[in-house]
């Protein structure tokens, strides 16, 4: 009795097998009722929408500010969700498989360990992606509704005041720039990219840490360091000229080598302020994120490949 599979190859990264594990992880998370969070998000968006801001300085300034507030609140919540979720899910799933011995049954099948890791992280990222997509959709609908409303309001006000056509056009341009633009979608994608990196970091940590809590805390710490290290490097560079000690300078250099520079993702804030996202920026950030995700996944594999259970 020869098994039909003995002839199929068990090389690494067989797409079908990775997909099976990824989809399974996705289902697992969905059935953990993760999407309930989305209803909370919907509430926040709606609440932010009805939040009236203090009127001041005449209408030429509020319009833009209102949209900015709506965007920054929603983007903030999206980012919060993406980062918290990706860290918690990645840090929980691997130890859970070990603890429940489900990992034994998976690795006892002809499944290379790399496929297992890639499948897990892909499943988590898929869920983050889908969640962000849904939130983005809701956000875009609310924002475009709000923008149109504002446009009608402001322009009729301006016309009533007898503004020149040029002034009205300028106003219109300013409002539209704050509405749902492609740049805005780009910024949501940047949130995804950033959470992909931090997810890969959590994966790496969870391959050698023995405690879920440790993984979660350390991942958040790395997230913070990632934001800080560029500032710190600039700061110490500035003070180094004034003669600060060599130790701190070396340390910050090391930090900036090891940890990802999350400051680059502050483009999200710029987009909220209405600065257009360039295609070039999206491509560079995607490339960089891909580099990090591949790097950290490979390192995870390096640790995981001969791990014993």
């Amino acid at each position, binding site marked *: *009795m020869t098994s039909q599979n003995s002839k199929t190859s068990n090389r690494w990264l067989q797409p079908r097998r990775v997909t099976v594990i990824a989809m399974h992880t996705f289902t697992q998370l969905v*059935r*953990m009722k993760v999407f309930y969070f989305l209803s909370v998000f919907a509430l926040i968006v709606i609440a932010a929408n009805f939040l009236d801001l203090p009127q001041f300085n005449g209408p030429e300034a509020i319009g833009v500010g209102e949209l900015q507030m709506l965007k920054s609140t929603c983007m903030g919540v999206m980012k919060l969700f993406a980062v918290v979720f990706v860290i918690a899910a990645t840090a929980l799933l691997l130890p859970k498989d070990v603890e429940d*011995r489900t990992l*034994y049954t*998976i690795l*006892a099948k002809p499944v290379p360990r790399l496929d297992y890791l890639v499948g897990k992280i892909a499943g988590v990222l898929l869920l983050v992606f889908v969640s962000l997509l849904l939130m983005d959709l809701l956000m875009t609908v609310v924002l475009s509704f709000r923008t149109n409303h504002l446009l009608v309001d402001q322009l009729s006000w301006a016309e009533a005041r007898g503004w020149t056509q040029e002034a009205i056009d300028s106003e219109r341009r300013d409002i539209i720039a704050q509405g749902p633009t492609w740049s805005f979608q780009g910024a949501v994608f940047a949130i995804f990219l950033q959470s992909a990196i931090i997810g890969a970091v959590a994966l790496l940590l969870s391959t050698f840490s023995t405690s879920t809590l440790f993984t979660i805390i350390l991942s958040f710490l790395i997230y913070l360091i990632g934001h800080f290290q560029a500032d710190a490097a600039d700061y110490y560079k500035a003070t180094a000229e004034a003669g600060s000690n060599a130790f701190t300078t070396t340390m910050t250099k090391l930090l900036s080598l090891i940890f990802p520079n999350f400051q680059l993702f502050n483009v999200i804030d710029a987009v909220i302020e209405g600065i257009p996202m360039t295609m070039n920026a999206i491509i560079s950030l995607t490339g960089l994120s891909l580099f990090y995700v591949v790097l950290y996944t490979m390192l995870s594999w390096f640790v995981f490949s001969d791990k*014993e*259970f």
Partner: protein
Amino acid sequence: MTSETAVEIRDLVKDFRSPLRGVKAFRAVDGVSLRIQAGEVYGLIGPNGSGKSTTMKALLGLVAPSSGTCSIFGKDSLKVDSRNDVGFLPENPYFYKHLTGAETLRFYGKLCNLRGKLLENRVTELLELVDLTNARDRRLGGYSKGMLQRIGLAQAMVQDPRLLILDEPTAGVDPIGSRQIRDLIMTLRDRGITVFLCSHLLEQVQEVCDHVGIIFQGKMVKEGRLDDLIAIEDQTEVVMKNASPELMEKIRTLVEQEESATLLRMGKPRTTLERLFLRETQIDKK
């Protein structure tokens, strides 16, 4: 067919070293060797913590041997390919609680590259085999211990492997469930599947196994064919029905007259409690 070697373990040694207290190593398995021919049912018995599970994990490549080698149908256990022909049921398995019985089998089947109609047929067939057709679409979170063990067995068999490795297949399962699992193992043996199981419930091992190895403190103490190991060569057992006390007395005198033979005991044979329990619950069911 019988001459093919399904499992070969040679001089397996496994030391566990805690990374933080790295000096003193704990030797879980100490020079174990065994060989299982295709088609055999092999039982590894021993008290808790004697190295049974570690031996199995080494065979599956879940732990790397400190020295020695393991192979399955001639393929090194550390290679992924060795797992094409093996199914594993871990001790006290918890599968994904969010999946139903059918989804669980589908998931493991897909991991083994099964798909489409072939996979669906296999899932149905296996659920029937382990008697879980009714629980097909129930989530595993609601399964009993025995059902989990059976879905675990089905999962291990999903790609139709030639070798099954079962770690304490009946631990924590009630006698009826345990009987079902035992019957399943018998069925599998009849189909020509090699089974390597370990247990500390000796009676069960006795019922299903052809070969037995006794492992104690990481060392193999005794190994061989079950019949050879447990037969008591210098004793004979006679079981009679409706024997009168007079006949018994006659036998006793006859034996006393023989110089070389000694009568050890006479009396009513007892059924085992397990057999009694099974018989009674079987009647109640009907």
